[in-house]
């Protein structure tokens, strides 16, 4: 208590030390006066009295000093003085300071940007109350009886489990927003009533929808804070207003608090029954299920509970097969059972390894930056040997000198950290749009206080790495050093030299390891993107033309056929077609089950993507026909059910057999056509989503039999496809002006997005590796040049004694290069360990790929040698005459 009060008093005094000093001066003066008067009273002469008074009082300047120190906090004061001195010293060598700050800014900035994303995705608790109780239930939202009856919440089965406190289904997709002349897209989410209960977040104001509203077809919406600010003026009057999404109207009933957004960057939530048919452009809505466990329930218990319900459902045959289909085993949709996955894992599980890897790469860049800087600081400290010797001679303790050097590092680190944060802000703004959506969403919700704490940690750690270590490694000046001035300070100390060699080696090792990791990712990515695609993505323009679900099939068919005709007639267009799917973008979403007609009971349904296409679809995409034929107008009559399979679907339905002319049926999701189809043709497999998945089974049917919300218009062009964009739009609008024309893109652009995650991490890692390589080169160059300049005199002597230029160059080169070689060997080992860890990110590539290892090692050694050779060559140009007189 007393201690604290003393500290507070001393701390307060720091701000008025000047006044306190002045007052003490007065006090002493008055004391001296009183003593003098007393002495005069005792009969001394005035002069004598004053002298005696001074003696009694003590040395005034030492009294003043000790009073000053006692009043304030001398440690803080001298530190501040040292900081001021450090800053002054840095300003004297702006070149050094700029290089150092920039190096640090790169190292820290890279880490801060990555950390912000990684923290939000992996470390920070999810931004909901009791996040550890949130789980995703997989294979749970598939109770179609409930869906069809339109009265039951599809999650009602699971809500009965004792482990579950609340459970909700949701599905999200981008919806077109028409709001006060501001067209845009917003991630809209259909949810069941318990959605907000599960997440545990109440609305900021207004309310969320009730179970009754969620089940009835009421068009209400809850909006996010950002949406409210941007589109509804951010006023409470927004409640009751109407928003238009995909052409439907919704009344706003609630606003969620700032920062609430789930899934990803969703900003509008609507009851799942509000407008389910045709609201989303996908033909089938796939729901995901989230649940909140009761507080005392463990994950294992929840799994057991849900499995009990699952087995009961299977036994009861609750699951009825669609009409007109051969009997299928009850509950086949539940084949896999229900899986309970912690929500964080469900959201970010797949990004975990890539994110951690990126964080590690950034950390390696930072280490290289610090090693680099440590080299610079070491050189600087040696160059300041004289100054330090003088300071030591005047009584500075080693601790005090160390602090002086460390504070200089701190000043650099703080400037570097600040610059790094600005760099990170810019980098995030530039890079996040390129990132896969889950990463972008995490990056947008990052928590700045945590990030700033990380920055402080990093800055402080930097000063320890590059500031303190060299300061400790440098040999400490002594008085002896002062007397040896002129000789002692000319040559480098063995301690300092060894420290520099270690730094060189470390830099090389880190750089090589990072370069190899980047090389592996690049080679893997290259293999990935040079996979055969099964179609020709060049010169294809695509555009989404969704029609209102209220239109009849006939009306839709008329419009599409007219549009196809107009587009095909455009100059530069070779062929045009419509299709409800695009190759390379097939996902396991939106699939239906196929069953062979000849042996229906014996096998599981084959999951396949249903794709409704027009006649020239295969011609436009250049998908080869393997057997049979494509559709003709004869296939479109009533009661016809001609279908084309891709090779994967044919193989799976009739393993080893011929598919042509055989029949199959489908188990539908919701109200769909459900009669046996006849296979009239088989086409080649096309790439599925993201290259890494095997070709997905697809079956094609003529669009005239019924198209579904999401239909692309596509055309093969003989001119660059992008140049036809506006002609495309006006061709559609010349048929019907009210039809929306969305997202005109080339097929290539759309496909690029399917491998955006791999693309993103590959180039980011390559960027880090390049950064490390550049930093390491600068570091090696710097250290060798420093050696050369330090040893100019020695070199001069050697040359005067007859050493040849090559010998001198070789000598200087060897010094730097040996450390580089040892570092490279260590780096190879590290890279090997690193690549094992990365193995699952590599596509068709061994983690120890010798080609990558060898070329990365060769690159590093070559570049490092060049960086060392440049200054070493300068050593050979030393003129012995000049060198010997060199101070």
């Amino acid at each position: 208590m007393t201690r604290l009060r003393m500290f507070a008093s001393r701390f307060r005094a720091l701000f008025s030390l000047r006044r306190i000093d002045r007052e003490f001066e007065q006090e002493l003066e008055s004391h001296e006066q009183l003593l003098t008067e007393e002495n005069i009273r005792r009969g001394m002469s005035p002069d004598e009295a004053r002298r005696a008074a001074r003696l009694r009082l003590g040395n005034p300047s030492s009294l003043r000093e000790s009073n000053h120190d006692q009043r304030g906090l001398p440690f803080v004061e001298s530190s501040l003085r040292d900081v001021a001195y450090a800053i002054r010293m840095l300003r004297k060598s702006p070149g050094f300071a700029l290089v150092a700050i920039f190096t640090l800014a790169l190292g820290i900035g890279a880490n801060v940007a990555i950390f912000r994303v990684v923290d939000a995705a992996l470390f920070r608790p999810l931004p909901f109350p009791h996040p550890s109780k949130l789980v995703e239930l997989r294979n749970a939202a598939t109770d179609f009886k409930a869906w069809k009856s339109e009265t039951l919440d599809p999650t009602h089965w699971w809500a009965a489990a004792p482990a579950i406190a609340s459970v909700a289904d949701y599905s999200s997709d981008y919806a077109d927003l028409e709001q006060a002349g501001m067209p845009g897209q917003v991630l809209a989410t259909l949810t069941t009533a318990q959605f907000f209960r599960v997440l545990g977040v109440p609305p900021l104001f207004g309310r969320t929808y009730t179970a009754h509203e969620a089940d009835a077809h009421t068009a209400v919406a809850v909006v996010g804070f950002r949406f409210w600010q941007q589109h509804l003026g951010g006023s409470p009057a927004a409640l009751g207003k109407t928003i238009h999404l995909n052409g439907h109207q919704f009344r706003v009933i609630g606003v969620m608090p700032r920062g609430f957004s789930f899934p990803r960057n969703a900003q509008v939530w609507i009851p799942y029954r509000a407008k389910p048919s045709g609201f989303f452009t996908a033909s089938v809505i796939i729901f995901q299920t989230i649940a909140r466990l009761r507080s005392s329930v463990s994950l294992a218990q929840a799994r057991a509970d849900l499995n009990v319900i699952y087995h009961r459902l299977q036994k009861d045959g609750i699951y009825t097969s669609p009409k007109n289909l051969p009997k299928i085993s009850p509950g086949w949709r539940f084949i896999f059972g229900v899986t309970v996955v912690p929500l964080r894992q469900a959201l970010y599980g797949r990004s975990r390894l890539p994110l951690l890897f990126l964080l590690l790469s950034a950390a390696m860049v930072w280490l290289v930056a610090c090693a680099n800087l440590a080299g610079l600081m070491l050189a600087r400290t040696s160059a300041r040997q004289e100054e330090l010797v003088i300071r030591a001679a005047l009584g500075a303790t080693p601790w005090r000198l160390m602090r002086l050097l460390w504070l200089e590092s701190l000043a650099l680190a703080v400037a570097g950290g600040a610059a790094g944060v600005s760099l990170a802000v810019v980098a995030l703004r530039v890079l996040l749009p390129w990132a896969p959506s889950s990463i972008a969403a995490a990056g947008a919700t990052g928590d700045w206080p945590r990030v700033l704490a990380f920055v402080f940690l990093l800055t402080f750690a930097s000063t320890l790495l590059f500031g303190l270590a060299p300061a400790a490694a440098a040999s400490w000046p002594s008085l002896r050093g002062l007397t040896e001035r002129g000789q002692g300070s000319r040559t480098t100390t063995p301690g300092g030299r060894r420290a520099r060699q270690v730094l060189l080696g470390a830099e090389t090792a880190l750089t090589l390891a990072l370069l190899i990791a980047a090389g592996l990712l690049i080679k893997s990515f290259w293999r990935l993107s040079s996979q055969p695609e099964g179609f020709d993505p060049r010169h294809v323009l695509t555009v989404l033309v969704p029609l209102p679900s209220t239109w009849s099939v006939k009306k839709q068919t008329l419009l599409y056929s007219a549009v196809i005709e107009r587009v095909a007639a455009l100059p530069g267009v070779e062929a045009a077609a419509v299709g409800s799917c695009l190759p390379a973008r097939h996902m396991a979403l939106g699939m239906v089950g196929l069953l062979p007609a000849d042996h229906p009971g014996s096998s599981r349904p084959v999951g396949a993507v249903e794709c409704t296409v027009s006649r020239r679809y295969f011609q436009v995409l250049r998908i080869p026909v393997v057997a049979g034929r494509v559709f003709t107008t004869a296939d479109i009559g009533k009661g016809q059910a001609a279908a084309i399979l891709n090779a994967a679907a044919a193989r799976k339905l009739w393993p080893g057999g011929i598919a042509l002319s055989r029949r199959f049926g489908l188990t539908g999701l919701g109200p769909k056509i459900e009669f046996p189809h006849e296979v009239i043709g088989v086409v080649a497999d096309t790439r599925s989503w993201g290259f890494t998945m095997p070709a997905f089974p697809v079956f094609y049917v003529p669009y005239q039999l019924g198209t579904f919300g999401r239909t692309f218009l596509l055309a093969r062009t003989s001119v660059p496809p992008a140049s036809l964009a506006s002609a495309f739009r006006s061709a559609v609008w010349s048929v019907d002006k009210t039809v929306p024309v969305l997202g005109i893109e080339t097929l290539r652009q759309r496909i690029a997005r399917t491998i955006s995650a791999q693309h993103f991490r590959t180039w980011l890692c390559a960027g880090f590796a390049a950064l490390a390589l550049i930093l390491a080169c600068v570091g090696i160059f710097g250290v060798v040049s420093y050696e050369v300049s330090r040893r100019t005199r020695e070199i001069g002597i050697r040359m005067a004694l007859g050493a040849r230029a090559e010998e001198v160059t070789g000598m200087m080169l060897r010094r730097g290069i040996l450390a580089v070689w040892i570092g490279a060997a260590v780096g190879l080992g590290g890279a090997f360990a690193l690549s094992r860890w990365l193995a699952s990110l590599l596509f068709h590539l061994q983690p120890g790929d010798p080609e990558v290892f060898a070329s990365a090692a060769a690159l590093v050694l070559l570049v490092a040698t060049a960086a060392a050779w440049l200054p070493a060559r300068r050593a050979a140009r030393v003129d012995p005459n000049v060198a010997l007189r060199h101070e």
Partner: protein
Amino acid sequence: MTETKSEILQGTLDLMVLKTLDAMGPLHGYGVARRIEQVSENLLRLNQGTIYASLVRLQQKGWISASWGTSENNRKAKFYAITKAGRKQLAAETENWERFSGVIGRMLALADRR
């Protein structure tokens, strides 16, 4: 060489200053130093400047307070006065000191009976 003018034990000066201020009321630095010397009958000869270290320490601990006033020779001077907390501290330390000096006294008496 035996010293008649004793060195002041660390910490005892603070106690003396406190006691002086308690007994005499507000005093300036000179007054405190003078008083201590008088009471010790000039056995204690202070380097009078050191009194200020003690005064600052006591002030920082909140046991005495300081304010500017006018001295007897009509000069501006800083007057120190004991605070409530200071009185409490003084009582505690007095007791401590008495116990301690009692122990020392007995110890020294013991040594005589060899």
